[in-house]
């Protein structure tokens, strides 16, 4: 009896380990894509410095005007991972926006301003509209297709 119950408890605990409810057992990349990549591209962690990730992840209920709150264990896990993977030494952009970074502005300086507001693009944060590999962190210039 005792053994059976113990086995059941163990099985239940093991089953939980692969869900987002127990983030310690999950691959943070998959968790990150699932939780953050639902609304915007799963921005590669290296696109912001650790201080920006820390500030963003501490304020998810007020995330650029929307409620992006996470369950506390998931928030904690992703915050630690992002801060660890962030671009150390890079300057913190205004508003912790990737699109306000000096390198971002420089890389996109040849684009006419109206391009961003095309319905097919909508926002500079919609990386995947032009960068087809954005969700995998691939931003190679040869892979860019700007939609009409």
């Amino acid at each position, binding site marked *: 009896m*005792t053994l059976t*119950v113990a086995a*059941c*408890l163990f099985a*239940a*605990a093991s*089953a*939980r380990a692969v*869900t*987002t*409810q127990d983030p310690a057992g999950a691959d943070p990349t998959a968790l990150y894509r699932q939780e953050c990549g*639902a*609304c*915007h*591209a799963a921005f590669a962690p290296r696109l912001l410095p650790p201080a920006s990730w820390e500030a963003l992840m501490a304020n998810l*209920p007020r995330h*650029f*005007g*929307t*409620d*992006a*709150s*996470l*369950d506390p264990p998931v928030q904690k896990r992703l915050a630690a991972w992002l801060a660890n993977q962030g671009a150390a030494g890079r300057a913190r952009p205004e508003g912790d926006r990737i699109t306000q970074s000096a390198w971002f502005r420089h890389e996109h300086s040849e684009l006419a301003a109206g391009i961003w507001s095309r319905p097919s*693009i*909508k*926002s500079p*944060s*919609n990386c*995947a*509209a032009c960068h087809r590999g954005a969700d995998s962190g691939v931003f190679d210039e040869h892979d860019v297709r700007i939609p009409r």
Partner: protein
Amino acid sequence: MIKSYLAFTTAVSMALALVAAASPAQSATPSDLLAGYAAHAARAPDAHQGKSFFTTPHGREWACASCHGPRPVIEGRHAATGKPIQPLAPGANPVRFTDADKVEKWFRRNCGDVVGRACTAAEKADVLAWLITLKP
């Protein structure tokens, strides 16, 4: 001996209940979730009211339909980022409304953005009742 056995079984029951409560209800069906919300609302779900709730703004910038579209059997687009959103209606996208934790997470976030407060069980039931009626 009996006392310690009872204490043990109580502890096991509590542990199992905790595990069950914390596990995602991935096996739920949209009808299960609807029944749960309706039971909390203590009134029958009203699909017509759900449609109106979904498609009309509530004194703020966005309606549910701003991102999901007015009839979410097709892909929507996030109103701020433009990111595609898979269809919300279970008839068009069978993974929708099958995980109670996920459903609650998105109601929590999106009701805050659209309504400026948590949605009531009755509002959730109405919206889900309407979504279930939609066929691609």
